[in-house]
């Protein structure tokens, strides 16, 4: 009696394996391969940029053009341009984004919050080139009076005045580019902070209110401490976006090589991404290598910023899970 049962079990196990085995193996293999394609793509970005750009780091001096003699001399002004525009964008976008996130998560009633969130998502959906077009043809002109005002009123102040030197007559300054960038990174910062704000435990909030806290005190004492790491990483992700954004800077900024503190200047160094978009057309092999090399620098920089941001998010998620 025992032998046939064992045989049947054995057979059924074999049957299941035989029927399912092949299909399952193929399917699992395809899925695994797709996952590996993603890893390979990311590695490929680095490898191909490195192959193409390696020679760009050590070209003869004349390749780096009239304003620089070495790769370092070429890339440092671009780095400064990239960071100036990005930091201006962050200074404008971060308080706004936190405010909007609070409106959506805590201040507005639900029937207001949903459309507000939708409007902010719309901001993210507008293509960057349209922002560039709007910034170049419309916003820059509108900001000319502000440039003049900043120069006249803040220019004479020592130290701060350095930022507001001779203004650009067309408004095509780093400041304008930074404002356009700020609008573009606003949605991502808002989306992430909104998410972490709304995860604040309800009991913390109610405890604060029950102790007589005003709404702002409740936000300051319960929401912000709980969401701190999420807020930091949202800012980092916004920074990553701003560093790599091409079109807004390319189309708005009037490019030059004057290294100065003046953020409303007539000609300021452009960003790495914008420089690539502006120069790629020359299609001289040497310059292309240099451009790819600067692209590699940009890639590593944004990778690092995003890596740190995601790491902070992941760490805080693990801490909350515990």
């Amino acid at each position, binding site marked *: 009696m025992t032998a046939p049962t064992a045989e049947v079990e054995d057979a059924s196990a074999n049957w299941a394996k035989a029927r399912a085995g092949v299909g399952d193996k193929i399917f699992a293999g395809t899925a695994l391969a797709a996952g590996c394609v*993603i890893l390979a793509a990311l590695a490929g970005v680095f490898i191909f940029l490195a192959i193409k750009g390696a020679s760009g780091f050590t070209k003869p001096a004349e390749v780096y053009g009239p304003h620089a003699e070495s790769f370092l001399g070429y890339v440092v002004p671009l780095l400064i341009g990239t960071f100036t525009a990005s930091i201006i964008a962050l200074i404008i976008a971060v308080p706004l984004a936190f405010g909007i996130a609070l409106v959506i998560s805590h201040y507005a009633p639900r029937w207001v919050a949903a459309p507000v969130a939708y409007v902010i998502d719309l901001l993210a959906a*507008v*293509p*960057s080139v349209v922002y560039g077009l709007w910034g170049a043809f419309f916003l820059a002109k509108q900001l000319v009076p502000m440039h003049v005002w900043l120069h006249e009123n803040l220019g004479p102040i020592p130290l701060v005045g350095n930022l507001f030197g001779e203004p650009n007559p067309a408004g095509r300054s780093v400041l304008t580019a930074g404002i356009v960038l700020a609008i573009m990174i606003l949605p991502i910062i808002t989306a992430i902070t909104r998410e972490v704000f709304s995860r604040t435990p309800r009991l913390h909030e109610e405890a604060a209110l029950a102790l007589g806290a005003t709404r702002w005190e409740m*936000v300051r004492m319960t929401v912000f401490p709980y969401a701190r790491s999420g807020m930091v990483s949202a800012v980092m992700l916004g920074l990553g976006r701003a560093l790599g954004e091409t079109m807004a800077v390319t189309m708005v900024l009037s490019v030059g090589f004057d290294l100065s503190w003046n953020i409303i200047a007539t000609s300021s160094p452009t960003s790495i991404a914008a420089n*690539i978009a502006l120069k*790629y057309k020359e*299609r001289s092999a040497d310059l292309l290598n240099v451009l790819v090399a600067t692209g590699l620098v940009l890639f590593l920089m944004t*990778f690092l910023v995003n890596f740190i941001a995601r790491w902070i998010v992941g760490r805080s998620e693990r801490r909350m899970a515990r």
Partner: protein
Amino acid sequence: MTTLEEVQTRVHVPLVQPRLPRQAPGIVGVIAIAFGGLLLVLGTGLVGSVIIGAIAFLVVLPVWSLVIEGRRGATDRLMTGLIWTSFGIAVVPLVSLIWRVISKGAGRIDGTFLSYSFFKTQIDQPVGVYHAIIGTLLITLGAAIISVPVGVMAAIYLVEYGKGNKLAKAITFLVDVMTGIPSIVAGLFAFALFTLIFGPAYVSGIGGSVALSLLMIPIVVRATEEMLMLVPDDLREAAYALGTPKWKTIVRIVLPTALGGILTGVTLAISRVIGETAPLLLIAGATDRTNMNLFDGAMTTLPVLIYGQNLRGDAPAEAIAWGAAFILIVIVMVLNLAARIIGKIFAPKKG
């Protein structure tokens, strides 16, 4: 007698802090608007009056509150005002941008604009953006064909097979990091890849598709992953209990259940990459002719065309740029709307 008076005065100690009347923000708001309106009439510009009106509101209400409610109440009023103001500030550029694109672009749209390319066979032939619309659709389609299978399969691996092993964790993390790759770097990658293989000065639509798919894959993976995780385990276990192999369970049970969410995610991903400019500048080039072949020759897309017209900068070029921007915005908005409708249609029915 005196004791009774004392008691009566003691009873008057208020148990609650004095509060402003409920209508206080409204009253101050009306005053601020009236003040701004007065400035507008007196000749301050529109922007200036609005700013001064907002500042007046942000000063008057907290000061009033400071007098009656005390410092804490005033801080609360001020922060509430600032937080709502931040939302107002964010809406201004969006409204301005949409209004600009519609007012400048909508008028340019007509039959010839949509059906002619830049390539002129006669000297007085009208120009249009037909070639760019075709280019945009083909390149984005190419990107979708590459990234949807890869993205969906990778998400299946992460949710169904990987389940928390080291490789899956690494992929999840790197996909998150990948969402932050600058688009120009994706373009450089495609450029480096294709020029290394096919020699320098290579341009084609498919290169653009590859660059865009690098940007699209992470979005597809994230959306699909989230949807697959929402599929209840009961469904999978019921299928296993009936002896269905795992792959068939995934194909016949899990994927159809999550289909709506996946389609929504894919549509949103497409709407994100369809407006990309920088990578296509580098690898897909620009041309005046209509090119239907993804694998050969330069291909213009709407964003690249807008950028090119912006560089030219003269009045007809600017008009064409706004017209193209209008078409692009309409496409993106339609895709967003489609994503929402798809999500509604395929949403799992309750009950």
